[in-house]
């Protein structure tokens, strides 16, 4: 992994008052993204709008594709063309992107997709919030694969985590999702964009060796293959089919085992390096509230009230939802009475908490069908119930 200073042209250094959607666009530009293949969808469109306004003066491409199938495909093409690429969407568009997200996993393509989640299923609640695509982010395309998903809880984090998303995608050659939601996407807050020289970006893992020795899918020492781009003279082949080190189709169980194991283990095997969580007061807590995105901010009030009521309470915020911090949850499960898991869905990440906790402690789901955030009282009630 080679870190370099980012291209200053895309960095809007200063203190701004931005919403999360704009901050995602600024994060992408600051990370060196110069290709955006978009398709409008509420509540994410502002990211595409902002990128389309900024990019002509920076040098790069914004193209509004004909649908999300196309925008995702265009990203993969753009990465093979040598660019850093991103798009933004919400639930229905995320569904359409799943086809080529699978291709990106198979071809091992670094790219970033932000999902400003809204209530679903189907058209659901276009303008109202949700956190209902968390499992889709993990399992949405067919077949076995691993991705990385980050969950910003503020416009500042939308900016910061979009840069991190690019860096993770380049490090592991994997699609990375910025899983935010309508509330964070449309929330205006202070966003500090540092000077360009303070922003480090991971350079693509370019192959520089002789043409005849290049094998597109031969793993390097760190388990990640080198990349080249079209036009560099390597005249390579790549496919969505199960393939060998040459990138040639190899339709057999042996090769499938190598392929699938690789794209999964390069993430699972590095999970400890990838996972980020934020913990408060978990050391002697009886109850730990596990949340992410906007819900972690709503939970703050319930946690304060629980403290006032004398409950020993801690919080754990998922900054990475995927890979899931199962080791840490398992460890905590042996110390606490219960986990309380509020999320704006019918209970998705809570399944991972249950799986990680095993029978070591109680796990209380606080579901919400979407359209608005939790009433903190509902979370407080769950905490009080859990501590009994």
């Amino acid at each position, binding site marked *: 992994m080679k870190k370099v200073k980012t291209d200053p042209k895309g960095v809007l250094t200063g203190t701004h008052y931005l919403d999360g959607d704009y901050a995602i666009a600024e994060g992408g530009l600051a990370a060196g993204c110069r290709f955006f293949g978009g398709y409008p969808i509420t509540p994410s469109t502002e990211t595409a709008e902002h990128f389309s306004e900024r990019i002509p*003066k*920076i040098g790069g491409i914004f193209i509004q*594709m004909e649908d999300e199938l*196309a925008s995702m495909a265009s990203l993969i093409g753009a*990465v093979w063309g040598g660019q850093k690429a991103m798009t933004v969407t919400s639930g229905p568009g995320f569904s359409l992107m799943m086809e080529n997200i699978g291709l990106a996993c198979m071809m091992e393509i670094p790219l970033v997709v932000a999902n400003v989640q809204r209530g679903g299923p189907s058209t659901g609640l276009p303008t109202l919030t949700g956190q209902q695509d968390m499992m889709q982010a993990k399992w949405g395309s067919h077949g076995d694969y691993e991705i990385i998903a980050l969950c910003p809880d503020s416009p500042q984090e939308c900016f910061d985590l979009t840069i991190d998303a690019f860096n993770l995608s380049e490090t592991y050659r994997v699609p990375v999702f910025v899983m935010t939601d309508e509330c964070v996407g449309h929330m205006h807050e202070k966003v500090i964009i540092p000077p360009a020289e303070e922003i480090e970006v991971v350079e693509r893992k370019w192959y520089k060796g002789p043409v005849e020795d290049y094998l597109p899918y031969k793993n390097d020492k760190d388990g990640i293959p080198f990349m080249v781009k*079209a036009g560099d003279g390597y005249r390579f*082949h*790549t496919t969505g089919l199960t393939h060998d080190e040459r990138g040639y189709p190899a339709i057999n169980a042996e090769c499938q085992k190598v392929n699938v194991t690789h794209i999964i283990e390069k993430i699972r095997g590095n999970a400890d390096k990838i996972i980020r969580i934020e913990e408060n007061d978990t050391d002697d807590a009886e109850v730990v509230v596990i949340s992410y995105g906007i819900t972690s901010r709503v939970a703050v009030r319930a946690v304060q009230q629980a403290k006032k009521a004398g409950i020993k309470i801690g919080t754990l915020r998922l900054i990475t939802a995927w890979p899931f911090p199962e080791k840490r949850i398992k460890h905590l499960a042996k110390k606490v009475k219960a986990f309380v898991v509020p999320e704006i869905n019918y209970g998705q990440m809570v399944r991972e908490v249950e799986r990680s906790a095993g029978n070591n402690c109680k796990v209380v789901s606080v579901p919400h069908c979407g359209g608005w955030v939790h009433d903190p009282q509902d979370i407080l009630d769950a905490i009080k119930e859990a501590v009994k």
Partner: protein
Amino acid sequence: MKKVEKREPKNPKEDLLRMDRIPHIWCAGCGIGTVVTSFTEAIKKNKEDLDKLTVVSGIGCTGRVAGYVKLDSFHSTHGRAIPFATGLKLANPDMKVVVFSGDGDLTGIGGNHFIHAARRNMDLLVICVNNFNYAMTGGQVAATTPLTANASTAPYGNYEYPFSLPYLAEAAGATYVARWTALHLRRVTKSIQEALSRKGFSFIEVITPCVTLYARRNRLGDGLNLLKYYYDKSEIIHGADTRTVDIDYQGKLIVGKFVEKDKPDYLTAMNRHFTNVLGDDYQLYGRINHEKD
């Protein structure tokens, strides 16, 4: 006695093919290989820079072309070769990008992408091998299957009106449109040469026998017969009105170069527009477009 060295027979296009992947998967009598031959011939005649030429395919029999040409080559998802190619072209404008795929891939599942790339006059050459059915999956009815022809999912004959691909391409905005049969080898080659030498959305349809499925199910004889049949049934009308080039089942085939017009391609139009509107604030994009403008 002088010893005569026996020479191994060599494919004259070896340097353009991935010989380590030969034999290919196409059936004996299939026309896809002849279109690939025309393509490689055109590359040679044009003296194309092989490092700057790329092939993107979708899924299906013709979708396998990307796997056999020794260029930067991409085997993408079903129907998505065109948007994949669009991203690649825009990210790396000094590449010449060729989309090589079948009728089902390009105009069935990928129909939306096809018309939008044509509308944008995206600088792509799209070569469509039209064999009138979904061959890879076993000969199902396609958006191009002529009326009354049999297919595995139209066992009593097709009753859906098919697309006329040149008409579709022109109506959507393609600036170069040609149609040939797979036996018009030299003409296919020439069309590919012309298309590779221009900027904008070029579309070449090549009518090709699918011997194993379409021909057998419709009792049209073997591949060679059908190749010859299509050729004999064709009439060359350059500049033909694309509204008049519909294909009837086993009827006359109008072929030729139907459309060739000048119109700025996507990147040229983008650079012009932004330069006009934003002046010095605009960061001109792409070396080749810059030079040509």
